[in-house]
């Protein structure tokens, strides 16, 4: 289709958006073809921060490779680590203690909120409202402090170890999380006032970048992008891991498939995550926070795959082991990569301003895409 259009019109403008652009959220390079302001084609060029993590992991032990995955999707670093730990545990058939499972899930959901909150600010910034960004960081900071207290770091926590978590919860943890829950609930309503109900924001996002359900499935667009298109693709529901099958929460699904639907999905997910945390925070079982494991982990020969739901979608870890202390091959199925592949499909025929809104609604984290 693109070639036909080019042949018809000579007055097409080819524009580089990125790698140094305010709204590509990192070093993503898009080559877009414009006619007037209408986008005919978007061609992503990746690799500006490709570190070949998959290759790196081939020389790291099973304890070490977990920390590298924090550097992929740094906003849900904890959930990435979780996926890796799950895969190793599955291979070694380690039984994770109940307490560790609950701690992991609590941290996962806190991470999810932190990630969504940041996305909320960034999305607002993409459509031109700057104030929400700073409001978002206020809430994110609270989560980061909770994380720092328990995990010892704010962004790349590296709190997961095969068989459990690295430390026990900090004594302040429950109190601070409860504080955060009550604080965040009121702030969510402010979010609605600032952005959700705002007529300009609605106009900027409704009917923009529509991804129909079958396209979302075909593109493998998981996470809020897929659920915004009406596809119930939450791994926590589809293939529950840890203690998710015991929890009461809803899978937020919107049917419209546009930017606003994706926005609503994430807003709903923040509320669902809050309810998960509320269910767990008073019921943390006592016991070990770590299962006993050998000092040197050797995975039996075979292939292992584990899936978790990060803030961006389905994150998969595929380990091929030859029986040694390091993985023979590792493949990380990053949600952002598949979501990005739908960008061209979604943004054709829209304006430049819409492209920015669509990218915002995809919630791209470039290290996650580049790996």
């Amino acid at each position, binding site marked *: 289709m693109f070639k036909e259009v080019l042949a018809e019109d000579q*007055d097409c403008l080819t*524009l580089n958006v990125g*790698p140094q*652009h305010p709204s590509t959220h990192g070093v993503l390079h898009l080559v877009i073809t414009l006619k*007037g*302001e*209408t986008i005919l084609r978007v061609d992503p060029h990746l690799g500006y921060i490709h570190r070949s993590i998959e290759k790196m992991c081939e020389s790291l032990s099973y304890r070490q490779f977990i920390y590298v995955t924090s550097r992929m999707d740094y906003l849900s670093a904890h959930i990435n680590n979780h996926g890796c730990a799950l895969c190793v545990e599955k291979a070694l058939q380690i039984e994770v203690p109940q307490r560790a499972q609950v701690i992991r899930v609590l941290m996962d959901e806190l991470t999810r909120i932190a990630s969504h909150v940041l996305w909320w600010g960034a999305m607002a910034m993409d459509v031109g409202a700057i104030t929400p960004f700073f409001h978002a960081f206020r809430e994110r900071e609270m989560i980061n402090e909770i994380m720092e207290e328990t995990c010892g770091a704010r962004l790349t926590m590296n709190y997961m170890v095969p068989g459990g978590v690295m430390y026990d919860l900090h004594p302040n943890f429950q109190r601070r999380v409860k504080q955060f829950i009550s604080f965040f609930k009121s702030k969510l309503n402010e979010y609605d006032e600032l952005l959700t109900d705002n007529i300009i924001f609605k106009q900027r996002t409704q009917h923009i970048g529509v991804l129909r359900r079958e396209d979302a499935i075909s593109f493998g667009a998981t996470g809020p992008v897929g659920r915004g298109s009406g596809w119930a693709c939450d791994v926590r529901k589809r293939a529950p891991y840890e203690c998710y099958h015991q929890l009461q929460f809803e899978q937020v699904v919107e049917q419209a498939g546009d930017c606003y639907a994706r926005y609503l999905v994430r807003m709903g997910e923040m509320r669902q995550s809050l309810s998960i945390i509320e269910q767990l925070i008073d019921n943390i079982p006592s016991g070990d926070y770590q299962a006993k494991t050998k000092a040197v982990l050797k995975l039996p020969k075979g292939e292992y795959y584990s899936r978790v739901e990060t803030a961006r979608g389905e994150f998969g870890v595929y380990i091929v082991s030859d029986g040694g202390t390091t993985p023979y091959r590792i493949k990380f199925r990053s949600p952002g990569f598949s979501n990005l592949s739908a960008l061209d499909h979604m943004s054709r025929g829209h304006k430049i301003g819409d492209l920015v809104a669509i990218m915002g609604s995809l919630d791209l984290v470039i290290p996650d895409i580049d790996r």
Partner: protein
Amino acid sequence: MYLWTRNHFSGVGSASLVVLIGAGIVFSLLAIGLSRFLVKPTWSRQKLEPYECGVPTIGKTWIQYNVGYYLFALMFLIFEVELVFLFPWAVVVKQLGMVALIEAAVFLFILFLGFLYAHRQGALKWM
């Protein structure tokens, strides 16, 4: 001061145009000149490249470009002329009373019909 008091206007106030234009030029040249004077320029090819997010520009910038607002410009012209007609009318409408009001209403109504027609024809769609 002589220039400012209202009672001394005739013919003097318009000199402020010259003063202001002069002040504007002096101000901007002063500002640019000052930085020229202070900064020792360095030259490199990369530095002078037009900014396009750090990648060399693809194709020419000055191409035949689809300006979406040709029709907007036409519409604007029509309404701006209307506005110019209305300015003298607005000054005196209070003295002339109802007749002037009705006349203007008719005038605006006809324009409005034209506007509706243009809207129907899709002239107000951004390309």
